[in-house]
């Protein structure tokens, strides 16, 4: 018993520096963010408190509401799309197709590219004068339209497309890993029962992959909330403000517009939104089943 106590103490001790980092960097920044959002800070923080004035400004801003709408559109399409596409690719690769290794690399390599590079490439591909549109029109399909990045109705989908290109491979890798772990017995049994493969995938396999799907959603959601580089490189929020996103709103106000107060208010709203959506879900996913360990 005494030895056990000692070991537990080691674990507690090991966690101390992590607590320090988490408190100083994460909790500290969160508190700082909330505090500054109640001040009149411009380029540099000041302690002139103005109540909810920054929040009033924030919610009075068309640009912020457009950003939030775009975050929802982008978030749903990007996360949903990457999950579906990634899963399909994984299923396909799991069918013993030829050149599996090559294909896996082909699907995965975009994840090695930063969002900035992703944005640059797709901006070029969607450039009406130089990109795919011109090439296809030169082939004779003169009504072909792929200038999404310069079209205010399509710009947000341009971001989704580029995002899918970059991130679907990661989901594919996660799902493929999961499929490789599926017990062969399940397939045997389902074949004996004559259940079509797609039903097995949908109703048996997908639930089994749940932990992986959760991981994928967390990773994808983080990139949605932080979508800044991609937006800047591909559309820069335009045309107009049609493809603006919250992270870009925050960044613009932090430096260019010298509005730390407004920027932190926006970040606070983002954090609360994320917390409201994700905390209950993460809680059930990660903490519901308390593991047996440690003191066992």
């Amino acid at each position, binding site marked *: 018993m005494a030895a056990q106590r000692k070991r*537990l103490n080691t*674990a*507690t001790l*090991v*966690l101390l520096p*992590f*607590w320090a980092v*988490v408190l*100083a*960097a*994460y*909790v500290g*920044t*969160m508190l700082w*963010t909330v505090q500054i959002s109640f001040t009149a800070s411009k380029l540099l923080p000041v302690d002139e408190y103005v109540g909810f004035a920054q929040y009033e400004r924030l919610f009075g801003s068309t640009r912020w509401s457009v950003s939030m709408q775009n975050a929802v559109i982008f978030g749903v399409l990007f996360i949903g799309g990457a999950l579906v596409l990634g899963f399909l690719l994984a299923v*396909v690769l*799991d*069918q*013993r197709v030829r050149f599996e290794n090559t*294909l*896996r*690399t*082909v*699907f995965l*390599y975009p*994840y*090695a*590219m*930063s*969002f*900035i590079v992703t944005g*640059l*490439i797709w901006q*070029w591909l969607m450039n009406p004068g130089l990109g795919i549109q011109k090439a296809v029109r030169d082939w004779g399909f003169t009504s072909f339209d792929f200038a999404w990045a310069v079209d205010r109705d399509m710009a947000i989908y341009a971001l989704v497309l580029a995002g899918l*290109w970059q991130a679907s491979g990661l989901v594919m*890798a996660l799902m493929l*890993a*999961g499929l*490789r*772990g599926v017990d*062969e017995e399940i*397939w*045997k049994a*389902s074949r004996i029962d004559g259940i079509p*493969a797609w039903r097995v995938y949908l109703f048996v396999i997908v639930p*089994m992959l749940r932990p*992986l799907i959760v991981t994928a959603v967390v990773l994808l959601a*983080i990139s949605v*909330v932080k979508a*800044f580089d991609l937006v800047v490189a591909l559309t820069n929020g335009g045309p107009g403000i049609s493809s603006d996103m919250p*992270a870009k709103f*925050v*960044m613009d106000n*932090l430096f260019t517009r010298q509005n730390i107060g407004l920027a932190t208010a926006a*970040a606070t709203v983002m*954090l609360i939104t*994320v917390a409201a959506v994700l*905390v209950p879900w993460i809680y059930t996913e990660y903490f519901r089943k308390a*593991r*047996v360990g440690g003191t066992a």
Partner: protein
Amino acid sequence: MSTETATPRGPHAESARLAFDRGERDRGERPTSRGTTREGTTARGRKPKTLTIGRIGLYGFVVVAAAFFLLPAVVMVLTSLKSMPEIRDGSIFALPQSLDLSAWAKAWSSACTGLDCEGIRVGFWNSVIITVPSTIASIAAGALLGYALSFWRVKGADILFAVLLLGAFLPYQIFLYPMVRAFSMVGLYNTLSCIVIVHVIFGLPIMTLIFRNFYAGLPVELFNAARVDGGGFFRIFWNVMLPMSTPILIVAAILQITNIWNDFILGLVFAGRDNLPMTVQLNNVVNSTYGEREYNLNMAATILTAAVPLLVYFVSGRWFVRGIAAGAVKG
């Protein structure tokens, strides 16, 4: 440390197999195990050899998907090899008339980024110097924390993890100001250690997440047995857990090398003038247009900057899936 850990390769292979063959399921892609399932049971829903409509559809999908994923890379490489008149007048899909590597040479060694005209190679070693210690340190931190969270019941550990996950959702620009202040207070601002610590802090949520998931998939009996043998916190970590962690270590390394190598704003703000990473040079090359935009130069510079993470993926792509497979699914 004990003698077994002196040669990590041996024991790790052993225990990795142990982990794979735990009897629950076969997760490996190792040729042997795949081979047996393939030939032995012809398991998956469809039979591969006959050419059914489904099979044609399957390959159709593969071809379209591969085209979608490959298209940008193909266009980039083609463009980087063309001359400017070719780019202006030709189709983006056209093959270059001659193999012109001058854009690559220029991007690497003579493109101007301000008054220095030494190309993006200046930042290459800086990026290496930043990436190597940051990757190692952040993986070490994530592995240790993930292990502690999975096997040791420590008060408040769940809260720690929840805060970390939540923190991952703050736009990182918000961190800049408080962090600059904090680092300058302790006199570290604008140094190599500064940027390494920053990368460790920002890498912590995801690293912890994947290691925690991995260790959660290992059987508790393993841990309990080690405890019975009198293993302490670090001894169990070092002698039991770490040797089994190779697959997930590879995944973590791939993710972190990519993230850290690709970072721009943190490097710009925290690394200091003498340690600016390659992405800063890339930004200077790509955004410093004068007259006609030199697309061939931009593309070459972009590919060169992305070369390291790309290489990592090409070399270790197979390990990536295997690594996730080894730790990921739990029933």
